[in-house]
């Protein structure tokens, strides 16, 4: 049983003639960190919204093919039920926090699920600690920075004890520091708590660094799906799809082009360091001999 299992899934929003998803097959295994990359309108948001049933329950339309979350068909299970399996975080930090304090925000989900209040308090503390926001219980969400808001949104999803987190361009409105903090939290959740993470992004910088797998989307289809280094190697292709390539991969492409014998293909700084070191120490040694 996969966390997310889409097989030839097609979806068309009510009142629209175009298919937002046009035959998508995608499997996300439990415990994986998967990033979906694509331009606006490529269908990545629709996959996110489908993962907890908002599509097709809150945003209706025609759904064809298989769409299962932890073995549950999204058509026959309401959002309130899928919400306990999948926590979703939206792009806009300000408009998904609606309570007057951080504590109420994080408690809101379990309250709706009628969890006893003592346990809710434990869950609130637990979730806030996981996202590094402990001690902010009484603060108003309005007073937080963008990055802090997104982390509270994650905590608010975590308090319902989901098995998967789905984030739709969560770092869109964040400054660089906020981005780093956000991804560190997600990395920790995956590594230490076995959380399945599904991200939609249009910038592949972090995807290259943190993902187990990357899916590239175009016009409602997944056009390639695999390990980051297999998918993200070609900056030109990414740019053509409306995706910002990882900065180092551009360096790699430049070196390949300008430096004789440099057959580089790295997508992260660590990889680059290793590859370049190897190359140049080898050369040096070669010359010395």
């Amino acid at each position, binding site marked *: 049983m996969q966390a997310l299992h889409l097989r030839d899934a097609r979806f068309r929003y009510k009142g629209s003639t175009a298919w937002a998803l046009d035959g998508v097959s995608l499997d996300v295994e439990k415990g994986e960190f998967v990033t979906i990359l694509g331009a606006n309108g490529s269908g990545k948001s629709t996959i996110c919204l489908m993962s907890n049933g908002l599509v097709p329950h809150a*945003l209706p339309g025609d759904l064809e093919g298989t769409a299962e979350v932890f073995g549950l068909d999204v058509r026959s299970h309401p959002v309130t039920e899928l919400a306990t399996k999948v926590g*979703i975080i939206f792009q806009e930090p300000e408009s*998904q926090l*609606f309570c*007057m304090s951080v504590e109420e925000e994080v408690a809101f989900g379990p309250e*709706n699920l009628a969890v006893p209040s003592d346990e809710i308090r434990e869950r609130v503390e637990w979730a806030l600690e996981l996202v590094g926001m402990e001690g902010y219980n009484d603060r108003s969400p309005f007073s937080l920075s963008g990055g802090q808001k997104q982390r509270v949104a994650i905590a608010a999803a975590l308090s319902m004890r989901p098995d998967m987190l789905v984030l739709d361009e969560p770092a869109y409105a964040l400054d660089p520091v906020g981005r780093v903090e956000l991804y560190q939290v997600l990395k920790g959740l995956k590594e230490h708590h076995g959380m399945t993470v599904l991200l939609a992004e249009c910038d592949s910088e972090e995807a290259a660094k943190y993902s187990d797998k990357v899916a590239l989307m175009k016009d409602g289809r997944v056009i390639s799906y695999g390990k980051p280094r297999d998918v993200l190697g070609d900056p030109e292709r990414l740019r053509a799809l409306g995706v910002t390539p990882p900065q180092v991969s551009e360096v790699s492409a430049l070196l390949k082009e300008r430096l004789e014998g440099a057959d580089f293909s790295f997508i992260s700084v660590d990889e680059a360091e290793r590859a370049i070191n190897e190359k140049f120490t080898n050369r040096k040694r070669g010359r010395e001999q």
Partner: protein
Amino acid sequence: MTGFIDLYTEAGTFLHRTDPRVKIVAVATLSLLALIMSNLVNLLVLAAVMVVLILFGRASFKKTMLAFSYVFRVMALIVVLWPLFNPGGTPVLFDLWPIKITEPGILAGIATAVRIFCLAAAWYLLMFTTSQRDLVRGLVKMGLRFDFGLSLAMSLRFLPTFSAIVESIKEAQRARGLELDKGNFRKRAKDYVAVLVPTVITALKMADTLSLALQSRAYGARADRTYVRELKMRAGDYVALFIAVAVFAIPATVKYIFSVPL
């Protein structure tokens, strides 16, 4: 008027600790008390008690002055206008047709102004010492439906957000040459529309996301939903409630049963 105002000041006084429900009841009883009294001396005593209570509440000076500045203006106007429109009784102090001013008119005007002070102060006691969060909690505990209370809480939560949006759009439109404070009726109305259209569109988009966020957090999953914090009436709250009710009940009895004018 720019920016967002919340009259609440955080502190740990007994007024802050009192259950919001008791304070809501106290606003009602104190207001009713002010409304059934018409004797200037009685009203002044009540006003003095209110001032002492407000001082106990340790509201910030700036907020207190801001709140009272409106009320003082209304009071000043009442003191001036009341005698002009109510020239009954004797002694007559000034009589030059059509203006006639009498001593009872002046006293009644002052009494009305003091009554307004008392009414305003009763609400300040609540607003200065109760956070919006507790206010909504209190209302829900007093019988407001959960979903209505949630909507109310959300609207208060988004007040500063929308004030900021209005301000930023106002600035942006001003940079494009819009002058909100100039021009005739029609032009000004048009300028305000130019500020409000983008504001409302932003807000309606936020409402869409909010609705999705509510569902994603299992809103409405169960009828027997729990609450992370419960308001609990403590012994002190019951004492305060008793006093709040007695403060109105006793004078009301004196006035309406024993027919003693207050």
